[in-house]
């Protein structure tokens, strides 16, 4: 009964509103460790981060251009977890983001930053490219050209 109500509520609020899971480090590490045929582009961002917001459309376009292809853009928001309803959800809705958005509740960054990527100093934006066990990392704002360059590079790079 409760599930039905929830479903109705979901339908009523509109299907385009994407659910944004709040994930813990173990869940993020599991996503990063996957070694299947999907190329994953994992971007760390925040709603109030200017350079992050500027590069977001490139990631969205990349995902749209790879519709039904084994490429997945994952936007990991580092907004404070308390900002989920106030900031992150409205932002995602307003921008109509179609890529997967996760809110990361990571705890001590001194522990999880190195687990995610030892080369990362901790500034955002930062992006990981993962494909069949291969990994590329970029810290800073990506141009559209560079984003596609990295995608090509990881595809063709020897394992």
């Amino acid at each position: 009964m409760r599930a039905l109500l929830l479903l109705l509520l979901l339908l009523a609020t509109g299907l385009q509103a994407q659910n944004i899971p709040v994930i813990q480090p173990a869940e993020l590490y599991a996503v990063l460790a996957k070694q299947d045929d999907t190329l994953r582009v994992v971007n760390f961002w925040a709603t109030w981060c200017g350079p992050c917001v500027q590069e977001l459309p490139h990631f969205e376009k990349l995902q749209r251009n790879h519709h039904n292809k084994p490429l997945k853009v994952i936007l990991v928001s580092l907004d404070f977890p308390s900002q989920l309803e106030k900031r992150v959800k409205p932002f995602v809705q307003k921008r109509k983001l179609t890529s997967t958005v996760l809110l990361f509740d990571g705890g001590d960054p001194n522990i999880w930053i190195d687990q995610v990527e030892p080369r990362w100093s901790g500034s955002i934006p930062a992006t990981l490219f993962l494909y069949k066990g291969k990994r590329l990392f970029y810290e800073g704002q990506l141009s559209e050209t560079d984003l596609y360059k990295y995608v090509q590079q990881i595809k063709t790079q020897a394992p």
Partner: protein
Amino acid sequence: MKMLTVAFLALLVSFNALGQYKTGEKARDFKLKNIDGKKVSLSQYKEAKGFIVIFTCNHCPWSQAYEQRIIELDKKYKALGYPVIAINPNDPLVQPEDSFDEMKKRAKKFGYTFPYLVDEGQDVTRDYGATRTPHVYILNKEEAGLMVRYIGALDDNTEYPDRVSQRYAEDALQDLIEGTYVRNGNTKAVGCTIKWKKS
């Protein structure tokens, strides 16, 4: 030509590496403009035993979240010989909220107890190798000079000061005050990227 480009790039990379401080290296002094218009350099602080140099700014929510804690840190450790020196590294053309006028307003509004300097040329920021705000460098006056003894985070919980369990920067200061070596000289934190000048 290609060789030359590669050589030039290699040179750039090595310059970059040279400029970025690591713990255990000697820090160079600087002279930067404070919000009162006066220039501040570390050598002016004859009595200080060292410094807590923090790259921070107005607009960044992580910097804002730590603002009160930075004031507390200054109050506590200035008396023990380690004053806070805050430096805003950002280019106001890229981030207008980080302009000199806004720095003055913010410092006044929140009652900064420490100098809030502007790194107009961004040379000091480059020299230190700061990548984000806030980014903490703890310097210690020793026989060999002003040594970098800690680089990294303030603590382990940005959003909730009352849930902090690891006070990384304070632990390093305590180690220095007790005269022992710093046990944990490098930590990482999330922060806003430095807003470099657009060339």
